[in-house]
């Protein structure tokens, strides 16, 4: 026993050493700090933002409650480029909340150091728009309204102003629920957000929850969403299948005109919004199951624009549908003419995959993060990939994590999250995903650094004392790829 203790301590010292980019290319870090070595929460559905003005400052989020149930929910904060992380409670919540916050997505402006976000606040799940002037003080609530889902934030600075776009599924918008909340300048004392309805077509009662805005410094703004057209099966019965279009809208004056997101017209019906895919089918699960690796499925959507000068017409979209033999299939397509036409064939087709997250770096290289279910029965694994391409044709593949899909058993839905996230600053890609945290080097083929106590020799997490075993759980993992 004494020998095991000594071994464990030595191992966890190693894992807590200063992180380095494995092979000079990729850094993967378990974000749970050492002081929370005993935690066994399901820290799923992560998102990330890097301060472009100070890239060492990075904020991550997940379904992580304040460990002491304070009135603010925590974010994961790094001030050293992602090498080390701590929890800092700055997000509005409620005292005693075990959840912390519902859906959360934050984004720094390109400069100015301000942090913006959208959350579903515990306990009402009202959609609240947030702003922080730094990463250590409580964020300010700018607006709040009920009946909403999955806010997704994108901010960009231009001429001393922060344009903030928050995609959201607004159930107060009648049956055409796809919405982007926009402010022309988040820096003013009381920024006004305008709710722009981007769905012009009839729906099956509502649109899907994923509404993903992106913007270019030249003023071009895009958004993608699932336009739900019909449904069959039952959501309560966990058999719902939605028939949906995949729609891309664009606005050339930054979404700030009188009638925004109507710059892109579909030739077949003359309505705003190019139909990239029509009448595809997606499952919309109430619960994940063993067949889906415990992850509930409901589509996945991500868009990235080439932010280089004169490249705002180049945009990539990742979306998913259900194809025979695959629980969910990701398709990656590209447009080089501002969304008017799209590649006829997929640039990538990925079976049994979800949580697509795209980003384009400062030299036009494309990155794609996704999580793929492999194997069958008890051998199912969630494999988290980062793919990178200089041109959309040739893709390198880095496996960031491969871990059993059956353990730990989920404590709630979603198991891994309804999304993960990827961003760029300069040439570097920064991402976040949630996964089984078993400390096994075989699960992290490109290396990993743990802050929490762990014994990689025995594949056990350890409590604060460095000896008591801790059960595996779902943790958020940060990664950085130097392009």
């Amino acid at each position, binding site marked *: 026993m004494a020998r095991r203790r000594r071994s464990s301590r030595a191992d966890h010292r190693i894992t807590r050493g200063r992180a380095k980019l494995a092979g000079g290319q990729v850094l993967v870090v378990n974000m749970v700090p050492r002081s929370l070595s*005993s935690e066994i929460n399901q820290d799923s559905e992560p998102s990330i933002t890097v301060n472009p003005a100070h890239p060492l400052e990075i904020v991550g989020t997940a379904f992580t409650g304040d460990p002491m149930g304070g009135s603010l929910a925590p974010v994961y904060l790094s001030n050293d480029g992602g090498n080390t992380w701590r929890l800092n409670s700055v997000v509005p919540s409620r005292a005693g909340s*075990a959840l912390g916050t519902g859906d959360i997505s934050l984004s720094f402006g390109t400069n100015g150091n301000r942090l913006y976000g959208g959350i579903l606040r515990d306990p009402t799940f009202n959609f609240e728009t947030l702003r922080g002037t730094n990463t250590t003080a409580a964020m300010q609530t700018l607006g709040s309204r009920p009946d909403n889902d999955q806010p997704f934030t994108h901010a960009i600075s231009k001429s001393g102003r922060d344009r903030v776009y928050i995609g959201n599924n607004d159930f107060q918008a009648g049956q055409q629920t796809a919405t982007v909340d926009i402010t022309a300048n988040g820096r003013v004392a009381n920024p006004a957000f305008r709710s722009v309805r981007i769905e012009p077509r009839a729906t099956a009662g509502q649109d899907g929850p994923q509404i993903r805005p992106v913007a270019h410094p030249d003023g071009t703004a895009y958004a993608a969403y699932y336009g739900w057209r019909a449904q069959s099966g039952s959501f309560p019965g966990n058999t719902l299948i939605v028939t949906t279009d995949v729609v891309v809208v664009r606005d050339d004056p930054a979404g700030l005109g009188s009638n925004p997101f109507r710059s892109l017209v579909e030739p077949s019906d003359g309505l705003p919004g190019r139909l990239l895919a029509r009448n595809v089918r997606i499952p919309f699960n109430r619960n994940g199951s063993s067949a889906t690796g415990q992850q509930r499925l409901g589509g996945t959507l991500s868009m990235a624009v080439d932010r280089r000068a004169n490249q705002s017409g180049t945009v990539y979209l990742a979306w998913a549908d259900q194809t025979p033999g695959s629980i969910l299939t990701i398709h990656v397509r590209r447009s080089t003419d501002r969304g008017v036409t799209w590649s006829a064939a997929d640039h990538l087709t990925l079976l049994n995959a979800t949580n697509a997250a795209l980003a384009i770096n400062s030299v036009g290289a494309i990155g794609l993060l996704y999580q793929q279910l492999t194997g069958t029965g008890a051998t199912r694994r969630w494999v988290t990939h980062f793919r990178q391409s200089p041109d959309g044709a040739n893709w390198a593949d880095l496996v960031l994590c491969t871990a059993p899909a059956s353990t730990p058993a989920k404590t709630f839905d979603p198991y891994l999250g309804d999304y993960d996230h990827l961003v760029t600053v300069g040439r570097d890609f920064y991402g976040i995903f949630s996964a089984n945290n078993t400390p096994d080097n075989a699960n992290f083929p490109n290396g990993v650094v743990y*802050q929490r106590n762990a014994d990689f020799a025995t594949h056990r997490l350890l409590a604060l004392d460095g000896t008591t075993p801790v059960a595996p759980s779902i943790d958020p993992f940060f990664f950085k790829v130097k392009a």
Partner: protein
Amino acid sequence: MTPASRSGALAAQARFVFQGTVKNVRATTLKSVPASPRTVVVRVDRVIQSPETLSDYAGHDITVQLAPGERVRQGQALIFHTTGWIFGDGLAVRSLGHEEATTPRMAAAAAYPEDPVRSLQAREAMTQASRADLIVTGRVSSVRVPAAEAQARARGVASGSTTERISEHAPMWQEAVIDVDETHKGSERRKQVVVRFPSSTDVRWYHAPKFQAGQEGVFLLHKQQIPATTARAASFATLKAPEYTALHPSDFQPLERLPQIQLVASAPAARPKPPATAARRARSKPRRRSKGGR
């Protein structure tokens, strides 16, 4: 204020209560926390009340940020009532106040002296009991889908469109019918009570009790807790005339906790003061009585 009531007022807000020895003043254990007149390093001697994740801190040094005006001396053994601050390579907490680590105060601080996690759970259960509108012991005789919700589901399936909103965060309400053995709080004197609870395992609802037929225990029930707007947004949610809801994990308790719950239920002023008021009260009196601490 008696030691017991003072401990109670502090503990009502603090999730992490511990006995510790002040090792250094104007000191810190974390790089990200600069030392200041309000930061002290405290060795945790014994954890009294704690969430599971932090229950193993005995023997470790942590940083404590003192409350404004709070003072301690090196070498003092104290009971600290704290909330969280920074969780990094080490732990930093914010003090709500401290007390001398006397035997009566130690006894007052923990319901289960040997189990800090259970002590916190018991305190939370008592808080829920004080907030409950109706407390009964009994047995769940059946669980069913509310009639209006079942009808809405049928309409949605038949029409092929969403007559109600579909959201991952939908509560998926169910109703548990409880055969009441005894009422311990509240004016209801019925043989059966219906309680609505979310059957959803979504992140928003998984903490709520999931009742099953045959389940026996103490039910801490609350009148309408869901705003009408939220109910409208939730899939198939038609909370038109709920009897009671149970949303907090402590709203169902095992029968062995009944004696403690009965004490709370029979207290004349069952509802706790708002935290800020309680905090001010807890802080102000000791300041007048003690120059060494609070």
